[in-house]
């Protein structure tokens, strides 16, 4: 938007006189701009082919905003039909979201002041591109009671953010009759398969053993589906989707447990990609609220160099949490032989209102069996 008077700060683009693909010469009139004083014709300072328009007729934009991109004759680099460098007005968070959703910010029309692109604009652009998919606007977390000191209520689905976790854990221990089962699983096959498999992968495609554990948990839930559920009001609601919440420690303390959606349907490669993305974003505080409220069960693992066993506290309203300790070398009796084997201790904390020891043990047995056939995961 050129300045058409010393006191002009914004102008409204009335109409375009050229269209993308048109060849223009320096000095050609390409648009009409409406100012407080008059309608003014705008000439271009560049010669070339109009690549695309950046401002739609009717928009009010500040002086200096690029109006269109002109590819100069004989040059590959596009330049803007403005005296200033082309600079996209977009909020930092919207820029991030556009990147995640694969939306080109230059294609998005901004609704903020001066045409600044906001998250909702990017979401709308993504939805328009792919109408089958609903815009990824998060379901609103339930509102906590308004008395300042009150804890979040039991059906609060947004409780997974770290501060709320403190309250959620107290409530969990108060309201959920926990019981705990433990089992040690021989990971010889799984770890050898993983090592072998990683040899053939490029460094950016390598798998962590945690992915095998996650996938196995997801598949074991098909055997004991009542653990993939939430407690709502007075009853348990089973879920068809397996959305495993992954407990992720944040640097400097605290944790979040966002979900990997449809964990059971993802290939190991897809799962690894989703896992890595989730950890990275969690540590940048860049999770979406839908990820926080989605888990149907949680898996926690204290990492590969820590303790043997962890017994988790269930995140309400979920009804179970699976805990993995470190993978450690232990003497293991197999076929009458004592051999050092990599083993992992797995625990299940479950809600006695929903299930019992017999069913829960079936889950751990299924998990063990799945991990003996890593190539099937």
């Amino acid at each position: 938007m050129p300045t058409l008077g010393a006191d002009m700060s914004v102008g409204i683009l009335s109409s375009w006189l050229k269209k993308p693909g048109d060849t223009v010469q320096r000095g050609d009139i390409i648009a009409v701009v409406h100012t407080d004083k008059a309608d003014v014709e705008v000439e271009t300072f560049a010669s070339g082919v109009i690549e695309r328009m950046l401002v739609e007729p009717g928009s009010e934009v500040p002086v200096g905003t690029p109006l269109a991109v002109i590819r100069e004759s004989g040059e590959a680099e596009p330049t803007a039909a403005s005296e200033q460098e082309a600079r996209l007005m977009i909020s930092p968070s919207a820029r991030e979201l556009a990147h995640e959703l694969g939306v080109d910010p230059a294609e998005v029309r901004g609704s903020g002041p001066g045409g600044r692109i906001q998250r909702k604009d990017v979401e709308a652009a993504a939805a328009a591109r792919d109408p089958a998919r609903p815009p990824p606007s998060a379901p609103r977390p339930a509102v906590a009671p308004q008395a300042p000191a009150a804890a979040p209520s039991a059906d609060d689905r947004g409780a997974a953010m770290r501060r709320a976790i403190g309250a959620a854990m107290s409530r969990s221990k108060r309201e959920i009759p926990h019981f705990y089962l433990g089992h040690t699983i021989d990971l010889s096959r799984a770890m050898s398969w993983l090592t072998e498999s990683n040899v053939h992968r490029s460094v950016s495609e390598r798998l962590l053993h945690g992915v095998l554990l996650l996938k196995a948990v997801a598949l074991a839930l098909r055997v004991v589906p009542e653990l993939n559920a939430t407690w709502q009001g007075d009853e348990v609601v089973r879920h068809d989707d397996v959305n495993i919440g992954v407990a992720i420690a944040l640097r400097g303390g605290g944790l979040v447990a966002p979900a990997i959606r449809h964990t059971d349907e993802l290939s190991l490669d897809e799962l690894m990609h989703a896992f890595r993305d989730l950890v990275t974003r969690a540590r940048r505080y860049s999770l979406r609220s839908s990820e926080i409220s989605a888990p149907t069960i949680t898996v926690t693992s204290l990492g590969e160099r820590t303790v043997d066993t962890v017994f988790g506290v269930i995140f309400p309203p979920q009804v179970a949490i699976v805990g993995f300790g470190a993978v450690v070398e232990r003497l293991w009796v197999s076929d009458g032989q004592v051999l050092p084997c990599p083993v992992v201790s797995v625990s299940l904390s479950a809600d006695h209102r929903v299930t019992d020891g017999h069913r829960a043990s079936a889950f751990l047995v299924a998990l063990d069996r799945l991990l003996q056939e890593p190539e099937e995961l």
Partner: protein
Amino acid sequence: MTDDQIREGVLRVLAGIVPGADLTALRPDLGLRDQLDIDSMDYLNLAIGIHEELQVDIPESAYDQLETLDDFVRYLAERTSGST
């Protein structure tokens, strides 16, 4: 590529993985995991970052011998020598 260039490269990658950490205080002769509180995901990201930054693919079998910054520099020096 000199050791210092390699060291800078590794530190650049680490800075992206552990934002906010004071890498000037990092002891090159002590383990990275304990000093920076990094886990296996971070370690994988380190390997990926090194691959992008220095074009060296560190096989998983080498992870055990790569604990300290000095280990990385030594290991990478052997694999980048003569490449530039």
